[in-house]
């Protein structure tokens, strides 16, 4: 039974949304409020610690995880507009405390109520449509962590199907990694470039004017490559479209340049 009281949802903004694309944060808030949530943004948030965790610096990752647990455990839910950061909290925070039972219990409790934005809307808030318009053809990239750690696959497609004027076409290998991989893209830039070039080619081949995904890391990577190749494919976060806040330029675009 869904409680009549509005659940208190803490937005985990994510460091990339904070720095590069605040619109995604505001779109998330709009969507969560429309889904009946009371949204708060805890002040003491920076990063989930994944860059440290994946670089083998578990001590820093644990320090950041402790501060996230402390800042977010008092809410009914924690929602992030990212499968990668959501996956970090949900899957990897408990692993980080394998030798600290007290913190592990707290991390597990937080993990249980942490969700990626779109899957939270569909799976927890039982949303099956949004009220938004978007005229154009889009293709959707399944970001790896969201897809394989959190099972985000049908949820964004279901909500996109309800956006008025939007047509979704799938690109080949939508589930194949775009080559971002956090620090991977700067440690092994040639391999990363090879992968993102392949991803952009597949997305462009559909003829879609827009490439959407749920993770800003992948989006910056793909948008950066699209711009470098001079492709006329606009790249943006799926939340912007779902929240009817996609009127501004896509990632890496000059205002008005690729207007749909």
């Amino acid at each position, binding site marked *: 039974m869904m409680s009549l009281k509005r659940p208190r949802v803490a937005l985990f*903004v994510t*460091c990339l*949304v*904070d*720095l590069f*694309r*605040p619109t995604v*944060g*505001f779109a998330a808030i709009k969507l969560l409020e429309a889904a009946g949530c009371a949204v708060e943004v805890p*002040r*003491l948030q*920076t*990063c989930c*610690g994944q*860059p*440290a*965790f*994946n*670089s*083998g*610096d*578990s001590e*820093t990752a644990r*320090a950041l995880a402790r*501060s996230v647990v402390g800042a977010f455990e008092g809410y009914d839910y924690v929602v992030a507009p990212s499968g990668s950061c959501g996956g970090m909290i949900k899957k990897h925070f408990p692993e980080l405390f394998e030798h600290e039972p007290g913190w592990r219990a707290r991390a597990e409790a937080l993990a249980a109520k942490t969700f990626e934005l779109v899957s939270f809307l569909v799976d927890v808030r039982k949303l099956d449509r949004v009220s938004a318009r978007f005229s154009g053809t889009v293709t959707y990239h399944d970001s*790896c*962590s969201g897809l*394989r*750690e959190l099972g985000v696959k049908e949820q964004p497609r279901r909500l996109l199907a309800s956006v008025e004027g939007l047509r979704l076409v799938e690109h080949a290998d939508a589930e*194949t*990694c775009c*080559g*971002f*991989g956090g*620090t*991977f*893209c*700067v*440690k*092994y*830039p*040639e*391999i*990363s*470039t*090879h*992968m*993102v070039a392949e991803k952009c080619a597949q997305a462009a081949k559909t003829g879609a004017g827009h490439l959407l995904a749920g993770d800003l890391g992948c989006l*910056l*990577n793909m*948008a*950066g*490559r699209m*711009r*470098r190749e001079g492709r006329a494919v606009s*790249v943006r976060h799926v939340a912007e479209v779902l929240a009817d806040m996609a009127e501004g330029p896509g*990632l890496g*675009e*000059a205002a008005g*340049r690729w207007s749909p």
Partner: protein
Amino acid sequence: MVAVTSPAFEANARAALVDAKLQKALGHIKDGFVQRRTAAAARLPEFDALRDLAKEIKDHTLDHLDLYLAHFERRVTESGGVVHWCRDAAEARETVLTICHAAGAKSVTKGKSMVGEEIALNDFLEKNGIEPVETDLGEYIIQLRREPPSHIIAPAIHVNKEQVAEAFRAAHTELPADRPLEEPAALLAEARAMLRRKFLAADIGITGANFLIAETGSTVIVTNEGNGDLTQMLPRVHVVLASIEKVVPTLEDVSTILRLLARSATGQEFSVYTTFSTGPRRPADLDGPEQFHVILLDNGRSAMLGTPFQEMLRCIRCGACLNHCPVYGAVGGHAYGWVYPGPMGAVLTPWLVGLDQAKHLPNASTFCGKCESVCPMRIPLPGLMRRLRERAHLERLDAPVARGALAAWSFVARRPRLYCAVAAIAARTLASLGGRAGCLRRLPLARGWMQGRDMPAPEGRTFMAQWRERAR
């Protein structure tokens, strides 16, 4: 030991990315292995349940490995065979040589064996005056080309048919120089004819083992070419090279895991040949070897027992993680610089050649998780790679520049107020550098990123700064 070029992974990878022939060859993996595996798994409703069962079987076996290996040895001995325990590659090579000398062997045929590659047996035998002949077609091709395999089940996947013809012309000088070798069928016929002579002349046949069965003392190989059977049935002596984690308790257990192996590897329901060997020829047998030796190689594996890396010892060498890995798909197997490439190699190689040598391998992954999602033995490959990164960080093996950047970022990220201020400045600076174009083409300290893509400029003000203002 095979030369380890893993420290040069970055240079190896760069060369691989611009090798047009290699790139074309790698393109075939997706159409071949990947699609066939997907179809094979979809046709078997209990596929995922079998994965759980197979994991349980191997976990149980590895928890009691001493017991099952001792039992296996007892059964091999009872059936008239000999088990040789070898701590490392050198011991294994010497043991093979001793067997060769005792048998007066001049020529040895070999079925495909990754342990054979691991201990660099061919070079060693040649140096000792014994001719080793690889009989798996792919292995034969790369033996002629004098290079290591680039894939654990398709060793010559990086070679195209023109290159095969070239290698055959160079090696088979007794054949007419003007013979046509354009068609794959012609290449196959020639290899078959050449190998047939070698099979008949060999004194010893060496195979690997996909499984060892404790219950019966049997060794099992799966092949598609039948070369393994000729290798082990025709010569007087059969030597099996196997690493210790290959053992499973019973025939029933092997049957369970076999249902996963070919499906995961090639998308076949079963390999063409699945051969069980139990001891040497018995008096009533029509054929078979007079001697049956099993070399049990540790080579660092026992050190993995009881650690989180014990999970890696479940690996059945199907190659699914290679086939599905976007990094392997981009650079191929040789870039990894040793015997085992791809995700499984990224976990195993540091244990076998040292993390200092192989530190790039566990780092050269985006952690996309595809490997783990297809591994029939449910090995958490990204998690194990991450643990190796953790060890490399603790041992200060990671690059000083990366360490410094991580430390600086960490200092700021642990202090939310400082972080907010720094992020606000960064957002404004990058936005103004991006200007009206909305993206940056050049940026100091971001050479890696900028080399292949632009940097989309931030919107201008951080989310937190805007939120604070609204909340006021």
